[in-house]
């Protein structure tokens, strides 16, 4: 090793990952795009040009570029740009919140199942196996359909779809980590299981689970908007990209661009999430 008398302290793990991420151009662009979308969504009440609910029978389906209506109007005469910005709030919410909730719930369950092993593990994993019998779309639709339309029901349905997947990843990683010698060394300290999990296991499990969860974000966006598209999510007249795709369907004949516009945003967000997730994954890889 070198002979410096003073060496710079090692930077924290996440800071290194962040630094690495800056070298991934696609990920950075995606992050930028997402930032713009999120800002537009969060600050929609201040940034949007019009009222998203104000309908006008005379101004229905104005084409893109009409004066005062930059992206045209929808089938009830409401300004598309405004509706898209407001729609971003609900769409992004419905995409992000379930993944976050599933991340917390799933990691906790997975940690317990993986660390404690034995009966606890079997009970948790076998119960979740039942959820694997359903393809995600079907499960989301079924639960949503059963609970009824509405924002909170959709959030619950989507969280329930993602929790089993995250638990699977968390449990798998925890089981591997648990067998490593440093966990045995930690057990030799006499510390409680809780302390060992918190100090030694958690940090090493969060990484892979986080990577997996970021990969779920795009799926969640598509699924959430899909639910609204089917009429199972947000109810009209709330603006939401999937719901807008649904209500604008009849407009595909004479104003196809407007009708396709909300979906383009779903696509944009989804692909940005995916590229960002890919970038995070390779940034974390190189460190190892």
């Amino acid at each position: 090793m070198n002979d410096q008398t003073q060496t710079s302290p090692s930077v924290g793990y996440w800071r290194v990952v962040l630094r690495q991420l800056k070298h991934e151009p696609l990920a950075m662009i995606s992050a930028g795009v997402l930032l713009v979308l999120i800002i537009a969504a969060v600050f929609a009440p201040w940034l949007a040009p019009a009222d998203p609910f104000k309908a006008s029978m005379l101004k229905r389906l104005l084409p893109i570029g009409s004066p005062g209506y930059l992206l045209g109007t929808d089938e009830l005469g409401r300004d598309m740009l405004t509706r898209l910005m407001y729609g971003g709030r609900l769409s992004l919410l419905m995409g992000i919140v379930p993944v976050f909730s599933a991340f917390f719930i799933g990691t906790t369950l997975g940690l317990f199942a993986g660390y404690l092993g034995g009966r606890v593990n079997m009970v948790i994993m076998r119960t979740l196996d039942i959820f694997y019998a359903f393809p995600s779309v079907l499960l989301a639709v079924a639960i949503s359909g059963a609970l009824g339309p509405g924002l909170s029901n959709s959030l619950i349905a989507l969280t329930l779809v993602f929790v089993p997947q995250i638990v699977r990843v968390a449990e798998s990683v925890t089981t591997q980590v648990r067998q490593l010698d440093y966990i045995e060394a930690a057990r030799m300290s006499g510390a409680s299981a809780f302390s060992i999990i918190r100090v030694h296991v958690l940090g090493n499990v969060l990484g892979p689970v986080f990577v997996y969860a970021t990969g779920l974000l795009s799926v969640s966006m598509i699924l959430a908007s899909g639910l609204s598209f089917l009429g199972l999510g947000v109810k009209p007249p709330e603006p939401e990209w999937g719901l807008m795709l649904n209500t604008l369907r009849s407009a595909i004949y004479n104003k196809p661009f407007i009708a396709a516009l909300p979906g383009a945003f779903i696509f944009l967000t989804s692909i940005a999430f995916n590229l960002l997730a890919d970038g995070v994954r390779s940034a974390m890889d190189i460190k190892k």
Partner: protein
Amino acid sequence: MMAQENTPILNTEDRGGPAQPLLVVKDLKKYFPVRNELFAKEKKFVHAVDNVSFSVAKGKTLGIVGESGCGKSTTAKLIARLINPDSGKMVFDGDGVAEYGGIALKEFRKNLQMVFQDSFASLNPRLTIEQTIAYGPTVHGVSNAEASVQARALLQRVGLAPELFASRYPHELSGGQRQRVNIARALAYQPRLVILDEAVAALDKSVQAQVLNLLQELKNERQLTYLFISHDLHVVHYMSDEVMVMYLGQVVEKGPVDRIFNHAAHPYTQALLSAIPSMDPTKRTLKPPLEGDPPNPINPPAGCRFQDRCPHVKDSCRSISPKLAPVGVVFDHIVACHLNLEPRTYA
């Protein structure tokens, strides 16, 4: 390079005096069930550790040798209570361990620590060296600040300058340095007994020598007792005061190091020793030290477990299990063999 110590060296009081063994292990047993078959008629078990008993004297090093699968690591983990034994007793300096009226397990953990073979897997890749070493004391009530101070002092003692190493991560260190960290981590508890499970096996020979010397120094400074598990007989010879030989989950021979190495009584020990490559050109041999296949550790046969490979096997060996008994009149050299052979000399 001797550093000044700020921390006291002995913490737990010596209760029984020098004559009382530090650790007595009686009839430790651990069978692992064999899981693969769905329709097995009777349950099969791997007899990993089968009625192992021994004692370790204070301030001495007990070397444990044997081939892979003989149960030495499992024994270590049973003693360390990383695995729970099926049956058996442990007495630490006169007090039962994890028994009613004895030492509680958490308290026991302060007295006994372990250094593992894989230096990299033994360290949490997410924690700095200092955090790793400081973790143990904090579990036992030491404040974070005090634990950090102790950690840095220990780093100094094992030969790693704290300014350079305390904030590093495990992947930035070499194998030898990591093992020193593991030793420091074990010492942070101020234990009386340290189990070294193949602790130097993965290191280069030159690094091994440094680490072994460090271990000897520490042992003398802190009145430590070592359980030194290894398959490398040279190293065992260098480090140990007493040697215990295990075969297929049982103790087959135990005695002072010179007796074992020069006057081994068990055929298995003799075979092990004859397999050590020698630098002496007059000591050539064509015969392999051991013939025959090792028996199945699952549901082993009756009688002596070495029966299929022993060059001196008799009928009684196949039916009666030999018990550990002194060799001749030497009371501290015991062997489990019906023949209790006239020990052959190995110079």
